[in-house]
């Protein structure tokens, strides 16, 4: 469960980072969001990844936690990359859902 939480956070984080990039934002939402929005997404993305790391370390200890975090990040980023290439539209929804799940689990 804890791991799933970390994973959901990483997934949401990468989604946010992905949308924060102009080129990918166009793929996902059809148009490029303005600068401030993209900044916001970027900050949100990094914050989520950092939070995921903190949680992973909290649950697993420093050594295993970091390893798990990197591994989950790889998988999450891979999923985002695949979706972006073949089915970019639902990405934003997925990111939102992942974030919601993560917040739910956190509470």
């Amino acid at each position, binding site marked *: 469960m804890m791991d799933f939480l970390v994973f959901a956070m990483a997934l949401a984080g990468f989604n946010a980072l992905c949308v924060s990039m102009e080129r990918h934002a166009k793929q996902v939402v059809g148009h490029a969001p303005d600068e401030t929005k993209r900044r916001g997404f970027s900050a949100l993305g990094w914050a989520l990844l950092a939070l995921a790391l903190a949680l992973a370390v909290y649950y697993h200890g420093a050594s*295993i936690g970091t*390893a798990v975090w990197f591994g989950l990040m790889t998988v999450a980023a891979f999923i985002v*990359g695949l979706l972006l290439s073949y089915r970019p*539209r639902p990405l934003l929804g997925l990111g939102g859902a992942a974030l919601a799940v993560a917040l739910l689990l956190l509470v």
Partner: protein
Amino acid sequence: MRFDKPRHFRQSMSWLHTWAGLVLGWLLFAVFVTGTLAFFRNEITTWMQPELHSARDDGHGLERAVAVLERKAPDAQQWSINLQGPRSPVMNLSWREAPAAGERRSAGRRGEEGGDADSGLEPPGGPAGRGEGHRAQDMQREGRGDRPEGARAEGMQREGRGAGGRAEGGRGEGMQREGMRADNAPRQEAHTGGERGPGSARPQRGGEGREMAMAAPQAEPAQAEARQQGGQQAQNRLIMDPATGEILQPRQTAGGNFLYRFHFELYGMDRLTGRWIVGIATMFMFVAIISGVIVHRNIFKDFFTFRPGKGKRSWLDAHNATGVLALPFHVVITFSGLLLLGFQLMPAAVLTAYDGDTRAMAQEMRGRGNANAPLPRPSGEKAALTPLAPLVAEAEREWPMQGVGAITITNPGDARATIEIRQARTEGLSSRGAARRMVFDGVTGEVLERPPVAESSAASSAWNLMTALHMGRFASSLPRWLLFASGVLGSLMVASGLAMWVIARQKDREALGRTPRGHRLVEVLNVAAVSGLLIAIAAYFWGNRLLPADLAERNLWEIRVFFSVWALAALHAIVRKYKAAWVEQLTLAGVLAMLLPVLNGASGGVHLGHSLGAGQLQVACFDACALVLGALLMFAARKVSLHVPRAKPGTKSRPAGASKAKKAEAVDELAAGLPVALKTEEA
């Protein structure tokens, strides 16, 4: 690239990346694939011994284990029970007969020797020099592999050769003896065969240091040797179904350990040579990673970028994505791989400080000075052994996260019996060898002591961390799966890099009007190394089930199947055209892999429908993985077969645009590709 002109840094790096990657890429692919599978070598071995599939845990295994041991080894000096767990469905029992006076001390030594195998501390000449048997046996002996914890008990279990065991003959002789191994093999088998049916490697539950009791085949040659050497202590092992108490006799198999061994010392050559080759390849890998990062430029900007259907561009994207997304894995696994081989590649420290005695160093590193301490003497008074289950429950309360891995009972049935319970795993990765223990009075069940765990130094913590990461020595299975996923990405990275070398030179070939010999060589090697290897691995699993279960030297035959099929695949790659070879081999590999679950059900294993329901996850996961990976291979084969060679001049490059257009194009391409592909096939 010419060397007489100055180049930009990035160009030089690009050159370096291309050629460093190409030259050892084929080998690296094999190392990556077999190494990735080796994360699950225990599970693979379990799958390859269908006799064990139906073992269950009903929570009363301990009583049955004690009953079995009381029946089989009433006079033993020590019993060891390795519990079933998430990585093994069975209990492993072993015992050590009471020794003749004066022989007590020889035990620990051997344990240490075994422990080195995994950490790269194994003396290079050692295993070869022992001339103890052929490679396959060596592989099976891998049970001695990761045993972070409890050197003492291991040492004891591992007894069997005593003083004669440490072949000092070592280095120089390794090569010469190599040739004799094959001849030795049958003799060894004959010696050990009748004892308890087909021997079997049960190297399971690696990672967490519980493998020790499982090196059955290793034990047997060792035993045979011990007898030859004048009857030293015998050791005995049994594999028990925890739910029934039945003693299982699994088939002999090279198991997951063959793949594990292959990934760092290859096969059919001296181990020393194999390790050197893999070590050099690993260095090239490291060079390729660093130069690749430099060449890539836009790691962050292109982080999520994959543009399908664009020929060379797509391949580069795929290569970059698989490289970058799993970059932490690639760096860590390569660096730690180098560390693990480091004592071989850079032996200066061991040579000077320890006079070349790697074992002495290993012992000091792990702080196991007392591994040779003698066992307590029995009192001679009989007394009933206290039930184990409450003690285990108490230990589990104390270590809820780590769980109980193994139980060692010294002087069972004696008034002075002691029971040592050891953690299944340690808390973090940096504390290898620091499993906590609890020692109980064997009659009253009181806790006698909780031996403190030695703090490891910063250097050995770092070493432990790296090696534990490399070997996936984690408590839970999730990190191992993550490593596995990253390993798959890594394999894809190497394979895509290899494929790209050919694709990137398409224009040269078109300009030239033919395929130069060098290109053809790369083509053949690409197919043989990538899809050929995958076929060979699938065939290895098929061989495991199709060879008669009681075949002599069965493990060797499995390995022979592996290499013969690989050789055939290479031959096929030579005979067929590049694309046809890819399509046919990928299809074959996919079919073979996808049918593995069927084969499993049909040849004595627990089939997927049943294993999922019954919670036989080790077996179920193997089958499920085979299905998924097989399907992916089939998909890849289809993609290749549909591939249309780069658009000829005339059909202009497609407008890079919105995703919808891309999708439509992809569909067009699929639709248009089939007839074209067929035509090219016919041509």
